[in-house]
């Protein structure tokens, strides 16, 4: 991929996939709340079946200073949690807000509020600036329902990124129609001088 970072974020949006974003949270904490939600919601009739945890980008903060110089920076990882059971939007909000309230995690609470405002839940699947795409770190229970679907979307995004890297599709065309024509033909335009990657890192 080009050195220039991607200008946009690519993610999965859905109302039927129950997904949650744990920013700056240790892995044990995420795993604990995922397992607890699985047991609790099965009791009250919402079968979440299983879950998968992705490790997202690590944030660098809390600088350790000695004599005014930053010696080290503590990093805290972020995780994404996706459940396997298909849920309605009402059930989805129920699950996310229950986890947010019970865990007393401010980041999860903020995430839950944002999803409720947007009326869809979104999780990042593509790269973020210089940081890579989230990677799978843990699986538990069934993986054949919504998780399979989620992974299909992830594969689509990865393939799109890879395909464009391989083809080097140009975008220095005079108009969008020209770009669409190149996408159909999968070949560079004679009028274009610069490659798509150089301009948009995509």
């Amino acid at each position, binding site marked *: 991929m080009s050195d220039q*970072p*991607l*200008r*946009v*974020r*690519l*993610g*999965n*949006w*859905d109302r*039927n996939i129950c997904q949650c*974003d744990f920013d700056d949270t240790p892995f044990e904490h995420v795993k604990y709340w995922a397992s607890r939600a699985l047991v609790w919601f099965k009791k009250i009739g919402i079968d979440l079946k299983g879950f998968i945890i992705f490790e997202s980008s690590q944030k660098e903060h809390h600088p350790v200073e000695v004599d005014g110089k930053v010696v080290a920076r503590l990093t805290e990882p972020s995780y994404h949690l996706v459940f396997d059971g*298909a849920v309605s939007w009402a059930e989805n909000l129920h699950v996310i807000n229950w986890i947010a309230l019970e865990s007393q995690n401010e980041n999860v609470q*903020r*995430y839950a509020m*944002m*999803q409720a405002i*947007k009326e*869809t839940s*979104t*999780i*990042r699947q593509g790269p973020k*600036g210089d940081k890579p795409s989230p990677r799978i770190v843990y699986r538990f229970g069934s993986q054949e*329902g919504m998780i399979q*679907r989620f992974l*299909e*979307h992830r594969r*689509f*995004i990865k393939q*799109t990124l890879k*395909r*464009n890297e391989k083809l080097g*599709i140009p*975008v220095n065309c005079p108009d*969008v129609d020209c*770009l*669409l024509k190149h*996408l159909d033909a999968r070949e560079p335009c004679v009028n274009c001088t610069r490659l798509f990657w150089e301009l*948009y890192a*995509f």
Partner: protein
Amino acid sequence: MPTKAQVDRIRELSRQGKSANQIDRTLRSEHMGMRRTTLLNYVREFKGRPPPRHPERHIPHRAIAARKMRKKIRLRVKEMRKEKKIAIYGTVDGEGRRFQFLGKGKDLYKSVMLAVRHPPKKEKPFTTVDAEKFLEDYGRYLSREKWDERPAVKS
């Protein structure tokens, strides 16, 4: 699946004029017992009897309802699987904007490529649209602006 020996034995007992219950008992005593539904199908076939008229009459109503519900859920999940849903989000002058596409294959790929280039219009910063419809009239959805280089956005 029943073995050939079991089928032959059922045929033989049916010719002797034994009832299905008697055949079942005999097979069990000979250590050749099998699933009752399968056995009844064979007995009907060998005796030339028609299949039962209303088999659902003997199934509890709750079980039938549960079966229908399971089928419905399976269908719903299958329908949902047809299309992918991709969100593209970033900022323009510090303000969040988002495209939410649903569709499949090439249409979705092309839409993503265009949306990466240009953000949605300011009047409608959060746009959810079918990829096929988007490609028919992309000028209606895309603005001439460009995405910020390093967007500070959250999911």
